[in-house]
């Protein structure tokens, strides 16, 4: 399972579950936002990643939501 910004690379290297993240230098945050807003982003992404791990997949799957 990959949490990553450059989804095409994860697809190329064969990750089964992929959660797209914010940007390469700050995958789980955004320095232009407030700490509270960043915390929301992070909680959302980690939650999505946990849901992805619980989800059965039959092929490479990108979890956009």
């Amino acid at each position, binding site marked *: 399972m990959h949490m990553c910004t450059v*989804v095409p690379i994860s697809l190329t290297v064969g990750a089964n579950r992929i959660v*797209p993240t914010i*940007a*390469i230098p700050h995958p789980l945050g955004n320095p232009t936002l407030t700490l509270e807003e960043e915390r929301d982003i992070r909680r959302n992404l980690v939650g999505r990643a946990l849901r992805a791990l619980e989800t059965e997949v039959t092929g490479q799957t990108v979890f956009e939501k």
Partner: protein
Amino acid sequence: MKLELGYVFIKDIQFAEVSKVENGTLYVSKEEVRKIILEDQNFISAEVELAKPGESIRIMPVKDVIEPRVKVDGPGGIFPGMVNKVETVGSGKTNVLKGAAVVTTGKIVGFQEGIIDMTGTGSEYTPFSKLNNLVLVCEPKEGLKQHEHEKALRFAGYKVALYLGELARSLTPDETETFETLSVTEGIKAYPELPRVAYVLMLQSQGLMHDTYVYGVDAKQSLTTMLYPTEIMDGAIVSGNCVSACDKNTTYHHLNNPVVHDLFAEHGKTLNFVGVIITNENVYLADKERSSNWSAKLAEFLGLDGVLISQEGFGNPDTDLIMNCKKIETKGIKTVIITDEYAGRDGSSQSLADADASADAVVTGGNANQVIELPALDKVIGYSKVADIIAGGFDGSLHADGSITAELQVITGATNEMGFNKLSAR
């Protein structure tokens, strides 16, 4: 748009009381150059050194290399939007001090600047060992932030290069060369039978001092757009990069872009060189998608038959490269990509971080992970201690006797992805 480049060949460089060019020698007033650097109050002191081909000199850490040029006829000045006013350049006449360069050094990031050796193994890998270099060692004031240091050093380099270029204003060039790009309709009429070819020039724009500027605009804030090839020869694109040395495009590379020169050499003979599409390499996926969409859209809009794509840097820009390639190929336009490789020290690992079946015509600048041995040299301009932390170096890279064991990526320009270098393998 038509530009004449006048080459004034420089075979030697020396310090003198008064700066001038005479009989192929570039004489430089150290005091004048120091005065130019110290106009910027961000610097507390400045040393100026010479490094000539064959001398036992190592320059490190190198930030940028700049060729002195001067606009002698036509609108605008060299480095428009940076030092000179934002006038459209690329037409008229420009004189070049061919064989000379300004090299800027400084510990900005420390691990993301490179090495130029003027002799020995290292010198074979960098084109800048063949030049008569004026090296600027500028000491920043205490507490100057890295990005401010980068900017100050970048401008010191431009200003000194323009100062030297000015010496060629009234000289008669040893040789001249003319480059002309017709409008789209004129080009179709002039060369109806020839394949229409453009160049997609990818610019490093990841931010955090991995930046390139076009007419003064930070490339990461720009959409994919177009330039006449000759605008590049007048300094429309400059490097603000502190990134792995081997495959970053210095300002010198941009001014002398070999893809542009080679396409001009074939223009009107085997192909019709339509123009240059410039695109960026940003760190958000949406930016990568948008910018490559625009490369493909402009390629289609121009009615191209073929495209050459050059990359800058490595890692996630491999994705921008593959997106450009794939999307342009999807439009029915043939592509050739120019890149380099990070294939591990033994060369057996995957070379690029991304791949696609449509990338079936590839030129490589070499394997940046290859380990090389650099002998101790008599003189180091700059700071040798960074050898252990420079990208491509490792703990123990710098030996007690001054020799260095490191990956090829430490050498400025070693695996350049415009194909600037001459080394090849069979």
